[in-house]
């Protein structure tokens, strides 16, 4: 079994419109997604996430670059590997006149998947009661759930989900989050693109952030956020006195309006509390000072103009 779920090297996709105009949606993207766990694929609108996913699934032909899914080259190896890959791309599309159950049974028949699995998945995604309703009467959230069920029909080793929480209410989002975690815990690889950074932070083991069709950061969530050396936020009655004590002990301290930022590893929190207590300064609050993924995301993606990078190629 391959230890790499997705490998992308130098992926470029240029869409040509007419003779002279072209837009580059992905620009030399390199990405490595290890097998197992949940991997978040982030980026602002137009950063190339969906195009990358479409290239991976053979829906869009890359202009340049090499892609591999579960060790098989794309697109040549897709017929072999597609049976181990479940996916939804953007808003899942179904035959609107058919019921949810009929839609699922129809695609399941392509891979000779039986009706029992279809019924079980409809229950799993919470559509058991609506399984015999025509899909045209479904809300966006219900379609999304049906899309997730379609993606899981094959019992896939790799699940590729493009905005799976799109249109879901908070409880639906929570269910998807739990489902993604469960899938990752089962040893599957879940590759999920989303705008919901809070959800991604809670769900994913690792992330990659795209900007202008290129990967600008990737790795474990904590590493991407830079959590390890971010320091501590300390709240104490007399901030100035506390700052003097800590600085005198050789610590770098930033005095802020309501708290202190102490540049010290989180595991040295006891040193700070002891030091302050020794000077009759009692800590009223303390927490690790880490940026959220959202803050880090905006920091990374807004370093340059945020307008969708669709390069005009003459």
């Amino acid at each position, binding site marked *: 079994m391959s230890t790499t779920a997705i490998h992308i090297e130098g992926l470029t996709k240029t869409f040509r419109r007419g003779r002279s105009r072209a837009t580059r949606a992905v620009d030399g993207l390199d990405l490595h997604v290890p097998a197992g766990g949940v991997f978040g694929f982030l980026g602002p609108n137009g950063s190339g996430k969906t195009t990358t996913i479409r290239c991976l699934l053979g829906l869009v032909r890359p202009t340049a670059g090499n892609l591999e899914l579960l060790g098989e080259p794309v697109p040549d190896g897709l017929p072999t590997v*597609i049976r181990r890959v479940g996916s939804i791309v953007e808003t899942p599309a179904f035959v609107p006149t058919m019921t949810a159950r009929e839609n699922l049974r129809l695609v399941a028949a392509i891979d000779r998947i039986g009706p029992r699995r279809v019924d079980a998945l409809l229950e799993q995604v919470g559509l058991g009661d609506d399984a015999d309703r025509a899909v045209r009467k479904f809300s966006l959230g219900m379609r999304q759930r049906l899309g997730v069920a379609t993606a899981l029909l094959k019992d896939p080793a790799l699940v590729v989900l493009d905005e799976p929480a799109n249109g879901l209410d908070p409880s639906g989002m929570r269910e998807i989050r739990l489902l993604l975690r469960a899938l990752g815990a089962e040893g599957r690889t879940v590759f999920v693109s989303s705008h919901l950074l809070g959800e991604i932070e809670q769900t994913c083991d690792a992330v990659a952030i795209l900007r202008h069709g290129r990967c600008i950061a990737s790795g474990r969530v904590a590493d991407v956020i830079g959590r390890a050396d971010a320091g501590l936020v300390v709240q104490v009655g007399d901030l100035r006195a506390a700052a003097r004590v800590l600085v005198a002990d050789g610590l770098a301290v930033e005095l802020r309006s309501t708290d202190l930022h102490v540049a010290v590893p989180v595991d040295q929190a006891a040193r700070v509390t002891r030091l302050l207590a020794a000077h009759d300064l009692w800590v009223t609050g303390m927490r690790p000072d880490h940026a959220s993924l959202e803050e880090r995301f905006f920091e990374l993606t807004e370093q340059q103009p945020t307008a969708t990078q669709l390069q005009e190629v003459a």
Partner: protein
Amino acid sequence: MHLLVTEMRRALHRRLVWVLIGLALVMSMAGGLIAFVDSAGGLNALQLQGSEPHPAVMRSWWAPDGGDGWLTGGAFFMLIGGMIGGASVAGAEWRWGTVSTLLTWEPRRTRLLGARLGSAAILAATISFALQVVSLLLLTPAVLTTGSTAGTDLEWWLGLVAAMLRISALTALAAVLGLAIANLGRNTTAALAVICGWLLVVEGLIRALRPGWSTYLLSENLAVGVTGASLEGDAASPTPLSALATLVVYAVLPVWASIAIFQRRDLVA
């Protein structure tokens, strides 16, 4: 095989397909009723001999010499229905956006489109044959009560079945044409406009300006295909064999173009 069956099931979920079948059944019932009512007062000698076609006279169902018969007239509607049905199957899948979903299950595009074309051809031929049988069955009350079965020997029956099979095959070809062109344009209406434009405008102009080329026109060759004989009084009319060859070319070209473009097309929505 699974893909073929799946595609057939998808096609049968098109409401338009059932509307077309329903229309054909209504027209057949109306035909049966009119034949019964019209023949109730008695048929004249020419009608009973089959010289003047009447659906209550069995020999009028199909004219072995290539003349007009009940089936020949019905074939026109079959071909139109097949074309609309085929175009609708492809156009709807593009409109719904389900082509992308299917490709995440079967990424071999030629195989997918091949299954779709095959399923359309099989369904169109089967439905066409079944509707012809129903249509003729609905005429039998008139034939058995007030009409005639005279002159219907084994040779005639074999000719009738051959004509029904030819019409079924041509309906399949019409469905394949409609589907291939709709797949090229990703739209049902555009495909039907192209086909109608070709048949009515382009072929009309060719017929008027270059009568000698009419041998190669789709409508001429379809007519020969339906009757199984060269058109009476038309020196440029193709023979059944050359009509078959021309119709194959007419089917292959759009299918080839459709597959070639589908292979290269980026599915971005």
